[in-house]
């Protein structure tokens, strides 16, 4: 049978707002499959997003959805999770939203290791505002605000997340559709802060400015640049130049924030 996405989508919302070939739809489908795999009760699941194209996912999936302000999703989600630790909390958003204006909330949610799953779609650009460079736009690339080439160094989101303390960090691409749901599901099952970085394509505002003739070109590049961590172990630095490691990049066990806070409550009550 074809996969039944309809039961997870709000009626009457399709077609969605994303441009032809934008990978966000592929990621949203992966998220829905992961939610099914984990048998998440939608009434007990909050999907929290910020502002931007990717953040519109919250409007489509039938759950408790919170479309917040630019960059603030992780902080709103922290409030939801603290108030109701029994809820499943999923954050969705883009690279600009999550690592520029929302960078502080992002790193601190990682540091706390609060139990939520953050699916961050990295398409190297601010899409909704028309293609300005983000902290993830490759140096030298073109954006509407870097017509001479981007002078900025880039954030590696996964490394940032690991450095900040997230206890599950995985990466894949919009091309690797079968891996998206598996990694998100693993993230949901993981106790603590899980980051799933999906390298995504923005044909409209990034591709056209950077010599991608089509969506297909962009998809092919996603395919080519991905190297599974296991395979990378056998490759030389030279071979890995320009590649992106995919799969589970980091996994550790560390006390989860709301569980730690539950202990504080016990302490305070007995004091």
């Amino acid at each position, binding site marked *: 049978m*074809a*996969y039944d996405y309809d039961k997870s989508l709000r009626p009457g919302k*399709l077609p969605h707002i994303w441009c032809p070939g934008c990978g*966000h739809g592929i990621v949203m*489908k992966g998220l829905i499959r992961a939610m099914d795999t984990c048998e998440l009760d939608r009434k007990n699941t909050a999907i929290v997003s910020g502002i931007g194209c990717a953040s519109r996912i919250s409007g489509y999936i039938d759950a408790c959805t919170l479309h917040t302000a630019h960059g603030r999703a992780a902080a709103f989600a922290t409030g939801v999770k603290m108030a109701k630790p029994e809820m499943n909390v999923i954050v969705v958003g883009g690279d600009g939203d999550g690592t520029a204006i929302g960078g502080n909330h992002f790193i601190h949610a990682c540091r706390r290791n609060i139990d939520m799953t953050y699916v961050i779609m990295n398409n190297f650009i601010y899409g909704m505002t028309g293609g300005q460079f983000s902290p993830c736009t490759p140096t030298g690339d073109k954006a509407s605000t870097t017509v001479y080439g981007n002078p900025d160094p880039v954030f590696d989101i996964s490394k940032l997340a690991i450095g900040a303390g997230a206890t599950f960090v995985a990466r894949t691409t919009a091309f690797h559709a079968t891996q998206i749901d598996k990694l998100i599901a693993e993230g949901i099952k993981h106790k603590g802060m899980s980051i799933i970085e999906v390298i995504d394509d923005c044909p409209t505002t990034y591709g056209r400015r950077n010599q991608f003739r089509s*969506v297909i070109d962009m*998809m092919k590049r996603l395919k080519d640049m991905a190297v599974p961590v296991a395979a990378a172990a056998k490759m030389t630095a030279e071979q890995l130049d320009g590649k992106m490691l995919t799969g589970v990049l980091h996994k550790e066990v560390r006390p989860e924030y709301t569980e730690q806070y539950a202990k504080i409550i016990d302490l305070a009550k007995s004091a």
Partner: protein
Amino acid sequence: MSSRKAEIEIIERYCKGCSICAEFCPTKVLAMDAFVVKVVDADACIACMQCELRCPDFAIKVHKN
């Protein structure tokens, strides 16, 4: 009963014509007709589901037989 491995349903009003499905179909079942994808060789389908998985627009449903 068809001997095909699967029936492919295209929801045309959702399709935005990105062509990802057609491009990465291993058996060339799909092809673009102007801005909408069409099934051009239904018998070639091996039910790999890649088109359904990769369609960003929820426009393809592959019903396995």
